[in-house]
């Protein structure tokens, strides 16, 4: 029994896959607040499927890229839970999950891109072949720098229609598709390490303002 979740977008998504199919799936009701919603959602999908924590055999987690705070909630939950239950944990690039869903549900044909909101007027982007295999990325860039006439899945396409006129579904990664991606090995499986793609904002000591006002 595979437990999967993704916290790389404003919405948290959690699912259970029994090796054949997704047996339970729950998206969060409100955007953000990943820290509050993830654990109760995990408890809920276990209850929905009538399984107990000891039935879990592996964990799949979206490793981003995405807003850092939510991303870390997902990753530390996956790492800790896998440690306690002594089961493996697989990381998947969250953009790859969007890509596989787009291919399998037929919203794209041939080469395409995935773009998600990176805030600060930037997007996370990656390029895929017709089977949903990543050929470039992920990068964090200004929409204009990645502008394309290709079909683009992910909420970045809807936010920046000028750069990405050909927007297609889906908008964000779902845990159900994440579970399918891992079960069917449709993407490269990674360690559960966050794809930050940006360095922390920090100002070195030398540039800080002096202690005395006006000094």
């Amino acid at each position, binding site marked *: 029994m595979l437990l999967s979740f993704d916290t790389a977008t404003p919405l948290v998504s959690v699912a259970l896959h029994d090796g054949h199919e997704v047996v339970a799936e729950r998206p969060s009701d409100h955007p953000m*607040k990943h*820290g*509050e*919603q*993830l*654990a*109760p959602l*995990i*408890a809920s999908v276990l209850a929905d499927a009538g399984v107990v*924590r000891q039935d879990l055999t592996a964990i799949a987690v979206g490793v981003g890229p995405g807003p*850092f*705070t939510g991303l*870390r*909630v997902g*990753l*530390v*939950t*996956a*790492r*800790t*839970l896998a*440690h*306690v*239950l002594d089961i493996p944990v697989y990381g998947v690039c969250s953009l790859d999950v969007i890509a596989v869903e787009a291919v399998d549900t037929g919203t794209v044909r041939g080469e395409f891109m995935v773009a998600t909101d990176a805030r600060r007027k930037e997007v996370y982007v990656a390029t895929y072949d017709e089977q949903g295999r990543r050929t470039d990325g992920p990068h964090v860039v200004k929409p204009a720098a990645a502008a394309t006439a290709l079909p683009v899945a992910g909420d970045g396409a809807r936010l920046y229609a000028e750069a990405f006129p050909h927007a297609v579904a889906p908008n964000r990664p779902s845990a159900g598709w994440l579970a399918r991606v891992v079960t069917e090995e449709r993407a490269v499986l990674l360690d559960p390490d*966050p794809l*930050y793609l940006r360095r*922390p*904002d*920090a*100002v*070195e*000591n030398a540039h*800080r303002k002096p*202690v*005395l*006002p006006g*000094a």
Partner: protein
Amino acid sequence: MSDGPLVLGIETSCDETGVGIVRGHTLLADAVASSVDEHARFGGVVPEVASRAHLEAMVPTIERACETAGISLHDVDAIAVTSGPGLVGALLVGVASAKALALGLGKPLYGVNHLAAHVAVDQLEHGPLPEPCLALLVSGGHSSLLRVEDVTVGVDPLGATIDDAAGEAFDKVARLLGLPFPGGPHIDRAAASGSSVAIDFPRGLTSRKDVERHRFDFSFSGLKTAVARWVEAQQRLGTPIDVADVAASFQEAVCDVLVRKAFDAAQFHGIDDILIGGGVAANSRLRAMATERAEARGIRVRVPRPGLCTDNGAMVAALGAELVTRGRAPSALDLPADSSQPITTVVA
């Protein structure tokens, strides 16, 4: 082996990833991974750097604590975690990890107040807390005087800093003197060879007028500015600065105010026991001064050893164990991380 519940505590409110394990009042493990070196070149804690470090350190620190304690995670009776106050992104890593432990082990979760945990940690060293007691909590993030009746129920704030925290003043003065971050231990060391009466630095909020309004409050911003002006004046004169004297005189001013106000509050509230906690309680002059003055006044002072004063997981576990022992209700799985959790909320 003593009795009591076996509790694992997680602390990630600032730059230390702490995991402690206690059984009742007995400390079994206190594992800490610090990202302080990564912050040193920024002269202060950078929240995003701290949060990244917490994620990397979390599981290895849990493993290390279990190994030291010689227990399996499955043996623990409850999980406790700092839910606030602190840096929200940093708190979230600890809270999410604690929830995963609670879920994975099927054990209750307690989201606890960081300040109450600083009080409860002393039980690991000196046994049950006197009830009531007066707590002086001083660190880089807080400077408060509290009246503690039952640490599992609530804590009465009597006073707090109205500007900088005491530890912040240490950091800023260290920077002025060219000493590394964090400033506390470096000032303490430099002060050892200096004179505490070399320079008469101001004692904040101790004038008669201030005491009317801020009897049990602190202010360290004026002191910090006074040190800066003094250093600047010496530089203008071309006089070399005696770092040891400045450090000792500054430290004396901070400790004098802290101890004076703590004793005044204890007397005012008729309390005979004072407990000092938080990172600044590791300062050797503060410990010595409090002990000296206590003897003269017939008041008992308790200060945990320096390793338990700074932020750590043992303090969270200690409070958790007390909550379990006293049958307090645990937190729900949707427990938030609350960067400004009020001191009056012991369990969120």
